[in-house]
């Protein structure tokens, strides 16, 4: 990594007694940069198919608009699960396990996470989330892979080593997620399924047919197992854990159970990926007789129960402080439901994080919903998913910001998502509560121009204007500003008539304002 030498010679923590948005930030100088964050583990749960965020986290403060936009699949308001972090939203009624985690302060929610100019193809969108690229840039390696390559540029040559005796990353699944692809090599090993995992720890080989080819296949598989350089460390870690909590009998829960077993057994692997499919709910995502049940409800019961069991298991294994979890899906779904009782490919969606040291907040406001939504309406992004990644890198893996830019390919502002003690670094440990509107426009509706008024705390400030699909139409503000109130006139003569969203980003503060032409 090009900045490595520079970074290594730079003082890590800087005392910066700044007051930021009413919160004091503190920094710890002289921290042992090498030691902190070393034992921290990230578990990423991929929800394939594009999760319908609006039926996962339902806006109570805009319930009427929500209900209007999706009459055939709306969940009754009185069934929603309240969480202490915000009274403006409710969780899908099946997510009781998640509700408990919010109450216990072990879960966080980030509203409307996406990226500019969203792509609606599963493949492309999945690649964008995994590679952390802009939507018009093709990158063939992934964000966690690039992160792991910083300290392990020559992997797998010379691995396992005394310093890194265990896999750097593990994919529970047959194929390693693109997110774990490093600049040269994949940084992870795959454990293809629970049965192959048990074969690995029991040193057994899959059954082979009783044929001449079967005899050679058996031999080859035995050698392949022996040549798994990490077989011993994985077997050793797994053997140390003999007692785990009871998990639900679902594929996701079984995968997370393996992850807990390996973490509990002391494996030093830093990143785990597990995945679950089925979120592509184009039709019949609820039972019409009872919209609190059906396909989408079943999916979230599975996710929520599995993660809660995993979380409890980590506590029992005494490793819960070492683990941070994250859910993501390649996109959310449209605001308006379709006639088949489902929702089509959309843009931004909520993300969940979990763990003992997560900052247990709800970040962001309920998404904007139009009174008469069109079929193309999407949730406008409030947070870039790479800001979530930046938060994990800086606040959980304790990575210097200069490296973060390399990993995420450009500068993304971290959000306060992890408690300070994880890295002992500059992070807010309380939610940013913004009650005032930091951005407004006049006139609204507008014709050929409108004046944006915005408040900045100083420093880099950006305003992007999105259309209802999520495309960036204009970036009228993008630069360094003095603290205070500012104005900018936007020429809107080229805009088609319709709904627009002005998104203000100023450090970790992000706010979306709705406008109409």
């Amino acid at each position, binding site marked *: 990594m090009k900045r490595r030498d520079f970074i290594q010679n730079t003082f890590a923590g800087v005392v910066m007694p700044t007051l930021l948005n009413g919160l004091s930030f503190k920094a710890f100088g002289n921290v042992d940069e090498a030691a902190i964050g070393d034992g921290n583990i990230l578990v990423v749960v*991929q929800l*394939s*198919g594009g999760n319908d965020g609006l039926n996962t986290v339902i806006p109570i403060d805009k319930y009427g608009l929500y209900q209007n936009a999706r009459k055939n699949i709306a969940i009754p308001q009185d069934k929603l699960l309240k969480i202490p972090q915000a009274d403006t939203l409710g969780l899908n009624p099946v997510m009781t396990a998640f509700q408990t985690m919010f109450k216990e302060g072990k879960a966080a929610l980030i509203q409307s996470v996406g990226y500019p100019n969203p792509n609606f*193809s*599963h*493949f*492309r969108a*999945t*690649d964008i989330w995994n590679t952390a690229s802009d939507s018009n840039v*093709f990158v*063939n390696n992934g964000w966690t892979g690039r992160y792991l390559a910083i300290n392990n540029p020559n992997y797998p040559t010379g691995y396992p080593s005394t310093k890194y005796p265990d896999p750097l990353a593990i994919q529970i*699944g*047959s*194929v390693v997620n*693109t997110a774990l692809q490093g600049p*040269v090599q994949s940084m992870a090993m795959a454990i*293809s*399924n629970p049965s192959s995992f048990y074969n690995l720890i029991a040193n057994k080989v899959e059954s082979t*047919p*009783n*044929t*001449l*080819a*079967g*005899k*050679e*296949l058996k*031999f*080859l*598989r035995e*050698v*392949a197992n*022996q*040549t798994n350089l990490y077989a011993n460390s994985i077997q050793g870690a797994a053997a140390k854990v003999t007692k785990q909590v009871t998990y639900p009998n679902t594929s996701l829960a079984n995968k997370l159970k393996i992850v807990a077993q390996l973490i509990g057994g002391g494996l030093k692997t830093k990143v785990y990926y597990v*995945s*679950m*499919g*089925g979120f*592509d709910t184009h039709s019949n995502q609820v039972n019409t007789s009872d919209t609190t049940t059906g396909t989408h409800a079943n999916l979230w019961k599975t996710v929520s129960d599995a993660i809660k069991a995993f979380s409890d298991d980590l506590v029992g294994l005494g490793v819960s402080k070492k683990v941070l979890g994250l859910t993501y899906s*390649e996109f959310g779904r449209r605001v308006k439901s379709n006639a088949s009782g489902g929702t089509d490919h959309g843009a931004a969606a909520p993300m969940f994080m979990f763990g003992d040291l997560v900052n247990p907040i709800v970040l962001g406001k309920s998404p904007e919903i139009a009174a008469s939504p069109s079929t193309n309406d999407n949730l406008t992004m409030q947070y870039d998913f790479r800001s979530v990644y930046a938060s994990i890198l800086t606040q959980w893996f304790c990575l210097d910001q200069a490296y973060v830019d390399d990993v995420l390919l450009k500068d993304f502002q971290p959000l306060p998502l992890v408690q300070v003690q994880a890295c002992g670094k500059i992070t807010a440990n309380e939610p940013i509560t913004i009650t005032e509107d930091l951005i407004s426009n006049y006139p609204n509706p507008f014709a050929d121009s409108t004046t944006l008024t915005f408040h900045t705390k100083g420093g880099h400030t950006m305003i992007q204007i999105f259309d209802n699909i999520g495309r960036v139409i204009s970036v009228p503000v993008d630069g360094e500003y003095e603290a205070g109130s500012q104005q900018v006139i936007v020429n809107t003569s080229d805009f088609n008539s319709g709904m627009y969203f002005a998104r203000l980003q100023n450090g970790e503060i992000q706010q979306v304002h709705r406008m109409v032409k």
Partner: protein
Amino acid sequence: MSQFYSPTAIQGGIDEYKGEWKVAQISHLLKRTMFGSNPDDIAYFQKRSVSQTIDELLLTPANPEPPLNFYDTVDYKDPQGIKFGETWVNTIYGDGTVNSKRKASYKYWWVMQMANQKRSIHEKMVLFWHNHFSTEINEVDDARYLYIHNTVLRKYALGNFKEFVKQITLDPAMLKYLNGRLNSKNAPDENYGRELQELFTVGKGIGSKYTEDDVKAAARVLTGFNINNDRIVYNFNINNHDITDKKFSTFYNNTIIKGGITQAGAEKELDDMLTMIFEVEEVSRFICRKFYQFFIYYDITPAVEKDIIEPLAKIFRDNQYEIKPVLRVLFKSQHFFDTNVYGAMIKSPLDLVVGTLREFDVSFPLQKDFVQEYYNLFGEMMRQGQIMQQDIGEPPNVAGWPAYYQAPLFYEIWINSDTYPKRNQYTNTFINSGFTKNTKKIQLDVVAFAKKMPIPNDPNKLINDSLEILYKVPVTTEFVQQVKIDILLSGQSTDYYWTELWDTMISKPNDTNTLNMVTTRLRSLYQYLLALPEYQLS
């Protein structure tokens, strides 16, 4: 012979196979007789019958152009003035430096012949005979000798075995390798006389009963033959020849070979000795067993000996040791096409290396424009085989590579905790980044391969059709589904998403984003499939 392992015996004798002729059968035949089963070759032979296909595979292609000077650089010129891009095979030895460069040229060239093989068994036969009449490049140590030796292998690979043995006996590289040139009446060197019987003709099966005296007698027959280093042909020195009569054992029917007193007389002695050896039926059995173990399976059970080896050996003898009639019957047999034979063999390193690049139709830079890169890229292929323990031209000893003969492991010898990961690294690298020499890169084109499948926009068919070419062992439906969902569908459960992506790529050939999405997924798919143990089987 002993029975090493036969959970279920291979069915069928040498009667002609009249069953199905589909991708499964064709790719089986091609994987065994060529290097890999290339989709275009499969399509070509699908239009022909089994019999026509095998007849065509048994044709000897035209001689290849000889190896070239690819090694001249700004700082180094061939000391004999052989120009860059011209062949060095007719020049003088030169010095050790240029010889080592020519040896490299020769080895790279040989792998090049494998990769560029015509639709013929010929190149596989050259490898078979190289393993049979084993020589080592570093022992022979003269690139010109090696090239001439190679032309003998090529000329007789599908020719007459008896004539082949005579030519090999007088081949300069062999005269050097097994010390025939040092074999003289006062100090007979028995090396070649022994291997001629033990390894090249009679073998050491239970039907082989030649004696130590037979070894000595054979050595005496061959005294006086050495090498004319200027013309690189054998030379005869009557002063070194043992002109006395040579008496052989009862195994050879107490044959007495009359001592010759001229070169013609000595050559007649050799002919007479070969006639004597070839009178022994064990010769035909020994070679047929080697064919069987190289092409079919290693285990010569009593049933195989009786039902396959015996009748083939008779065909061999009845045809005066012509090679083709034997192979024709063997490959057309019901036995060869029995499904139990499919996948029962572990690919040799060269089969894996060359087979993979042929199955994926890797395109190399043009030789005429990029001689150096062209040779060096084949050099990389040669080196891949080398690190997996099959270094072309350098078998470990005169018996060839142990994987072809050593009981009870046979092909399993190729696989160990060092070589298995190297096989995976090879296919991974070939798919993901390719091999580069001086900015010229060769890489598996996974999209081009997928395009050759009948219905590539159907993810199930794409995987199944690919597997039909790449694997010779069945996989479960669950396996296909898992690979499809995890890789081609990126976790989705709807096949249509792949169909849509593929169709978009076809309809918008300039849309690099879509091409990239397809490419990434196909690379993952084929990387996964080629790394599994199943791909190591032929």
